[in-house]
């Protein structure tokens, strides 16, 4: 079976690899690119721990071939913070104790970032539906929902602040 050459943009960087067609995206990220923030949980498309963004859509990277992602733009948890400054979602999970063991956290945050891109001002119910594909076995989700709502508020405030000079003109 011939290997396939895959070129992807991961967290803004162009990365290339020769992969077996059967290689899963999560293993390309973790084992080839050493981006181990993306976790393998259930490995059966259920738990969402391996969630990353692929061309703007949240995806379970255990359920996608690396070859399928050839040419795609991917964001993983490693691409979330701005240097030493945590992303509002990361800060909010910290502030609201949105994790205990932390295993689900990278996937949870990636899914939350997709959700807030779709719906910047969700209700608690919409947050719960938005993370329905991400399982946390520690927290009972209450603090995760609080964290996502805190981040949503901060991200809206930032957007408003950024829009203000234009509006004032």
């Amino acid at each position, binding site marked *: 079976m011939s290997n396939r050459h895959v070129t992807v943009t991961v967290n803004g960087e162009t990365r290339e690899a020769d992969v077996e067609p059967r290689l899963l995206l999560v293993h390309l990220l973790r084992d080839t690119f050493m981006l181990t923030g993306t976790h393998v949980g259930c490995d059966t498309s259920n738990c969402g721990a391996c969630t990353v963004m692929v061309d703007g859509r949240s995806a379970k990277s255990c359920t996608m071939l690396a070859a399928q992602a050839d040419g795609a733009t991917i964001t993983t948890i490693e691409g979330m913070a701005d240097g030493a400054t945590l992303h509002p979602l990361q800060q909010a999970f910290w502030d609201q104790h949105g994790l205990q063991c932390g295993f689900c956290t990278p996937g949870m945050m990636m899914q939350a970032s*997709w959700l807030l891109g779709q719906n910047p001002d969700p209700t608690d119910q919409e947050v719960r539906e938005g993370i329905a*594909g991400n399982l946390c076995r520690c927290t009972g989700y209450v603090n995760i929902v609080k964290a996502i709502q805190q981040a949503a508020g901060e991200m809206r405030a930032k957007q408003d602040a950024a829009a203000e000079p234009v509006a004032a003109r």
Partner: protein
Amino acid sequence: MIPAEFEYARPRDVGEALRILSERAGDAKVLSGGYSLLPLLKLRLASPSLVVDIGHVAGLDGIAEQDGELRIGARVTHARLAADASIAARYPVVHEAAGGIGDPQVRNWGTIGGSCAHADPSSDWPAVLIATRASLLCRSVNGDRTIAARDFFVDAFQTAIEPDELLVEIRIPTPAPGTASAYKKLERRAGDFATVGVAVQLHLGADGRIDQAGVGLTAVAETPFAATDAEAVLIGAAPGADVFKRAAAAAAAQSRPAEDRHGPVDYKRAMVAEMTGRALTAAAARLHPTA
């Protein structure tokens, strides 16, 4: 879990995909979103020698109303169908089924064509396509073939698609005025496959009686099926609690559920009746008789 080895092809257009399928018929599997096929490959329940990724094939992702049909390209995702405002207004059964499939990530990537071709006996789309009397357009190098949904789902994980054919489009008849539909699904946990799924579509004649009825059931037989006994009860009747109760009982009697971790056979039959009743009631609430 690592799939067995396979070759990978990424055709750019339908013609190239069809040529590959024609050359490698029987030994190739088509990959659309991947949310049905990848789990099968990983569990090694399927081990094709070639995976044909149609993710970059142009022209399979349209949604359009044309010639009295809603034409949905096979690669349209569940998420797009759930988010489409015109579909929500005009095809409630499609909207409700799309929004309840799997979870957000599954809906972001999973496609209506992939789901139909996979034909999981508990999947949602077959019930919808059966209730709405939809058809599925398959294409090969030899030409096109349109298959009625009621003939398409042959058995568990088996469809009428030939090995050299590609499912390219799903066609749902545009409902006439006076039509209403609904999808009701019982799932044990968020994101589960249905324990029971019921799609219904009713049309009310000028005399206020039901003159067209479609009832599609999923997860309660070896393959999704049309509850024809329930449809027969509905035809000619004025919508109401009594007739819906009799139709629900007929649907339960016609189902052939298997005992599994979701419950025993008696429970499932009871849930078929319950969910059929709810779907009929929800559709009826949307019915506005017209001349």
